[in-house]
């Protein structure tokens, strides 16, 4: 249970960093931390103590295999989710570089030409 608790702290730290920090690069780091916390959570869902890889070899007992092997589906999901996270991060970095060209600052509190 402790590990889920630590994981949620990681998530909240990322969310805090994304929302409260004013520096664009810190915001990007916060986003990445938050995404990784979720990825870690999904991996933890399939984790088993002393588990074996989910590959069924011919000489294995099926019932024992089901009991011992870790759940492979979350790992597949996380691969996809990491790729999506990477593309979001790339887009964020590109936009923040363009923002720096326009405003000459990375400080979000000075980038406020829109008033909404």
């Amino acid at each position: 249970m402790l590990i889920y608790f630590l994981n949620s702290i990681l998530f909240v730290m990322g969310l805090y960093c994304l929302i409260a920090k004013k520096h664009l690069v810190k915001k990007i780091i916060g986003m990445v931390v938050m995404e990784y916390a979720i990825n870690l959570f999904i991996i933890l869902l399939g984790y088993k103590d002393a588990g074996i890889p989910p590959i069924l070899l011919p000489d294995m007992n099926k019932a024992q295999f089901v009991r011992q092997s870790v759940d492979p589906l979350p790992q597949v999901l996380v691969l996809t989710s990491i790729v999506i996270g990477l593309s979001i991060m790339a887009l964020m970095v590109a936009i923040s570089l363009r923002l720096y060209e326009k405003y000459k600052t990375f400080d979000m509190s000075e980038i406020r030409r829109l008033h909404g």
Partner: protein
Amino acid sequence: MENWLPIFVLAPLGMAFINLLLTKVFRHISSYLTLSVVIFLLWLSLRFLGHESFFYAVGGWPPPLGISLVWDPLSQLLILIVSIITLAVTLFALPYMQQYTAQNKFYSLYLLMIAGMNGVILTGDFFNLFVFLEIASIASYALVAFGVEAEELEASFKYLVLGGVSSSIILLGIALLYSVTGTLNMADMSNVIHQGISKNLLFFTFALFLMGFGLKSAMVPFHAWLPDAHPSAPAPISAMLSGLIIKALGIYCVARIFFVIMGIVPIIRTVLLVLGGLSMVVGVFLAVGQWDFKRLLAYHSISQMGYVMVGIGLATPLGILGGLFHLLNHAVFKSLLFLCSGAFEYTTGTRQLKQLGGLMKKMPWTGTSCSIAALSISGVPPFNGFWSKLVIIIALFQAKFYFLGAVTVFVSFMTLISFVKVQKYSLFGSLPKRLQDIKEVPALMITGMVILAILCIGLGVLYPFYGPAVLESARNILLDPNNYLRYALP
């Protein structure tokens, strides 16, 4: 015919990448490629119209294990909306986007957005839903920043941060649901949920999904990104964002997940009604004071999505029908209004209402379309907006929500005021000196707008001809979720 279902996703997705390769050799064909794909999708959706519900197992793996695409009346309604609006918007975009560079990239992102939306609408698998949601979202973040001016980049970054948070939260919700049900297939998951799982966890995922999809559909506490993001994009993309993205990624997912998969519970109904009512009121009050045409329209999007949320949240047969009808109507007239604002900006170079005036004489086609759309959104009788608002109001009174019904009438009145202002300052009045020699926009742009304007009139008057087949069948899906299990699983 059933094997054609994945084409809805594959055709735009494939063309998005083929387009980038082909335009290296043939410079100017990307717009025609996009137009052909969009026409093909409309033809395909008309072919599928009225087809009975079925599932398609991607790769031949049967549903509880593999990914499935599901065609049912609710998907049919959304696919039809997406196909028709994208055709009109694409026709408009052909001349409009001539003023931008890197058109091939624009059309590729545009096609990715369509692919993502179609995927979200058709998928029967939770993780797949997340993937398509991200495809559509990432394309729209990039499209908002397409002009790469200071304001557009700022709006896009804001949109990106909030959109990223909402996507992460949705993923967290999906992961939690997977941990208790052990499946990702929607129908299978619905089966497990109805057999009973821990209430606490179910309610936690409700909260996560409500926040995630609330952010995507810009319900009021989560609306901050919309008035920046929608006006900053090029006009065709504003029309797509306001007309389609907030519906396909927001309301549709809410309807599909809360009603069909999880089964509606009273507390969710209350939350949807409260969020919808707040959105209606706050959106319209923020809109009345705006002088930037597109920003005004963006605030009205928040308000009108409140109507849809209230209608669907009522969960009575008439309420859901009104909500879905308003969803269809809002897609038509809000896209048309954004296209009109784009046409004004195209000819006059400004979208500040105070600098416009008397455009009706110079731009009769655009002006008439704009009037029709404005009358529709403010609920003047023969147009479509009136009928759906009427249905929602009657449903509210029938369900004894008198206060909310009165609020709905009041908001409709405020909408009328705000669009009278738009008409007075842009279409009528005296033409400023600066605009003496403007001309009507190119014919293709007019075609796109006129298609939508005809729909604005037709959808209201011709309801008896298409209503039962398109809207009432979709409503029956939301009312009787157990039906879903019958056709989404083998």
